[in-house]
């Protein structure tokens, strides 16, 4: 019985799917993603996600249409079916590489935040294994468990976020979002296009299409949660500008952590960051659990391994190994990540979706 449950690739509903999406994507407003946005967008960085979504939403809807047309196929199977096995595998490996790279960069940056701000004496490898260890533990129980954990912790994490906003609201000057266009409109549109990969997770989540109870829950969970994520993301960017103000907002690397250090309740409770830190970590565990699961699933589908869940352990170890490679996050990997990988993914995804769509049209849609 236990075995059955552990291996459960049982279906998840719209609620679980939505919670996973929101926790995964909205934690991006609390890591170094924001500093990438402020670097290019200045005080108008909050418009970048909106522009990105405008670029990305079309391709995503097309992808959804394709998924619906070719029932019960995940992303890779869909690519295989439309473009043929050879090209499909090639693209699959490319996607696997990009996804793995994203997980490695993200997880390392999280470890860097934890190490630098909270546990300066503790060796990086210990913190890293701790993060991946917990994420692995959640991931190994399957998608259903990840979904349940996400749903369970969701209200607590969000309640803390609301409390945070209430506590800092008195220090926010909304007027700081002016001059309205920041570095200029062209810059915003350009950055919005090249940084749309911030929401690339939405593309990768289409891997879970067959795992959802039905088509409606995929659509409902996906759309509603994506909407919430965008609103939250934009709100947080405005909040950061409203508190830190340009140009200080550009100097800060980890806005969320600077913000929670700024919070106090009355004159007596001043160092509250550690409470927020715990909730933030729970969010991080779920986020990396889903990433580990996703990469294993990707790997399994490409190489036709039906029982892909045992792969999660190897994937976690691989992420740990690769993540320990860079000596210094900011100078090495951050630059590489920001200037090469993000734009690459941003271009790859829409191009790939349009290619799939075009070929599918020419071939006359789903067979049978």
């Amino acid at each position, binding site marked *: *019985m*236990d075995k059955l*449950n552990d291996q459960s690739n049982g279906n998840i509903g719209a609620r679980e799917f939505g919670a996973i999406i929101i926790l995964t994507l909205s934690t991006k407003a609390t890591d170094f993603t924001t500093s990438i946005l402020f670097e290019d967008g*200045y*005080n108008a960085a909050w418009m970048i996600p909106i522009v990105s979504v405008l670029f990305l939403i079309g391709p995503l809807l097309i992808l959804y249409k394709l998924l619906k047309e070719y029932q019960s196929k995940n992303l890779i199977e869909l690519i295989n079916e439309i473009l043929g096995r050879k090209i499909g595998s090639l693209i699959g490996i490319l996607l696997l590489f990009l996804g793995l790279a994203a997980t490695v960069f993200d997880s390392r940056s999280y470890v860097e935040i934890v190490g*630098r*701000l*909270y*546990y*300066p*004496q*503790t*060796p990086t490898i*210990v913190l890293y294994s*701790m993060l991946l260890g*917990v994420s692995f*533990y*959640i991931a190994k*129980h399957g998608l259903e*468990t990840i979904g*349940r*954990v996400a749903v*369970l912790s969701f209200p607590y994490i969000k309640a803390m976020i609301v409390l945070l906003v209430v506590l800092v609201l*008195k220090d926010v*000057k909304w*007027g*700081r979002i*002016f*001059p*309205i*266009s*920041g*570095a*200029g409109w062209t810059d915003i549109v350009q950055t919005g296009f090249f940084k749309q990969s911030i929401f690339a997770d939405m593309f990768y989540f289409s891997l879970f299409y067959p795992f959802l109870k039905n088509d409606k829950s995929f659509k409902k969970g996906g759309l509603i949660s994506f909407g919430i994520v965008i609103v939250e993301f934009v709100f947080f960017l405005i909040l950061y500008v409203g508190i*830190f*103000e*340009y*140009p*200080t907002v550009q*100097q800060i690397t980890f806005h969320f952590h*600077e913000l929670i*250090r*700024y919070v*106090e309740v009355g*004159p007596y409770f*001043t*160092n509250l960051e550690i409470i927020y830190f*715990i909730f933030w970590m*729970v969010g991080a565990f779920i986020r990396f659990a889903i990433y580990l699961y996703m990469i294993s699933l990707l790997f399994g589908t490409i190489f036709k391994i039906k029982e892909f869940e045992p792969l999660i352990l190897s994937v976690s170890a691989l992420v740990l190994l690769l993540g320990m490679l860079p000596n210094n996050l900011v100078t090495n990997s951050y630059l590489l990540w920001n200037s090469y990988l993000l734009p690459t993914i941003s271009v790859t995804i829409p191009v790939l979706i349009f290619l799939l769509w075009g070929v599918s049209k020419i071939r006359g849609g789903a067979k049978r």
Partner: protein
Amino acid sequence: MINQNFSRIILLFTSLCFVLSGCWDKKEIEENAYVIAIGLDPSDAGGIKVTYNIANPQVGSAKGVNVDEPPASIVSFTAPDLTVARDTANAFVTRKVNYNHTKVLIVSEELARKEDFFNYISIAVKDRELQRDLTVIVTKEKVSEFFDKNKPELETRPHKYYQFMVNRTKETGFVPVSDLHRYMQKTELDSDLFLSLYATATPENQKYGNEDEYLAGEIKQESGNPTQVIGSAVFKHGKMIGLLTGEETRMALLLTPKAKDLETMLTSYQDPLDEKHRISAQVSKPEGTEISMDFSKDPVEIKVNIPLNIEIVGIPSLIDYAIDMDKQMLLEKSIKQQIEKKAMELIKKTQEEFKGQPFYWSLPGRKYFSTVEEWKNYDFDEKYKDMKVEVTIDITLAGFGEQITTPKYPKKE
């Protein structure tokens, strides 16, 4: 089955709390030396002179053991900067020097006026233990001297002392809100002047003045702790360039766009019907100051409208303003004129002496620009000295104290 899994996960999370809180980063309270105030002075030998006010966690705790020890210890030494000073201090402080609870950063006027002051102070924002809401205080004398003379009597525990001092003086409006974050923000944007608390423990040029017309050290104080905190130090391009008295600081706070920062202040105005007396009032700003700018004009016109609630709390001349409408109008008009005159004087001073404004007018100003580039190229700070500023005060007489009529003067025989 599922329940079992969850209880396992919860167990894991709880055990994680134990694991992550200990190990490498564990430090007992006793092993730490909590620096409450960091002082910075210029040093002739290079680097800076750092002074620590270290709290003794054993004094004032509920158990009250070892009450013979002093509540704080003061150490002073030279170091390259305030981050590495921590380890240098360990040559004579046995505990790990910790900035997690540092409340104030005190710098002497001499250091604040130096060209490279920004270099020394900006290090603090990179330090992970120092928080950005650290209060910046400028002292007239050397900081080491300030620490020696400062003998707080009611709050012997240093963290309480600085906390109360900063909070209370902020409420009265005698000093501005000045944290490290604002200093960095204003210096980096370079469109506003930064105001910092001004304090001294060395009384000088003592004189009689109205309640707020002082600089720190000028209040005629007969007894008590000699430390006075009133007025503000003005910073331009990250460097101190001048001083504002308590009265000017209050006026500067009234001119800033935001509503908060100063809750209520007690102040006095000239009685319009009696030259010998002044009328005391409690003033508050219920809403933000309205500021509109006309960049199409040359020079640029700025219109400022300050809404004020004024409650008359004392009329020493004993004239009954409350029950006479004509007198009330006269009083209102007189107060309005007095405040407007003061405001214009301050604006003139900032335009001529400082050539910049400490009123955070870059906030309403930047609305008129589309990009950061345009705003920077416009150089608001530089153009401010020629701008035409018009201040109007919108007074609401909120009341006449607890007792409406004034007491009748006893008839003399």
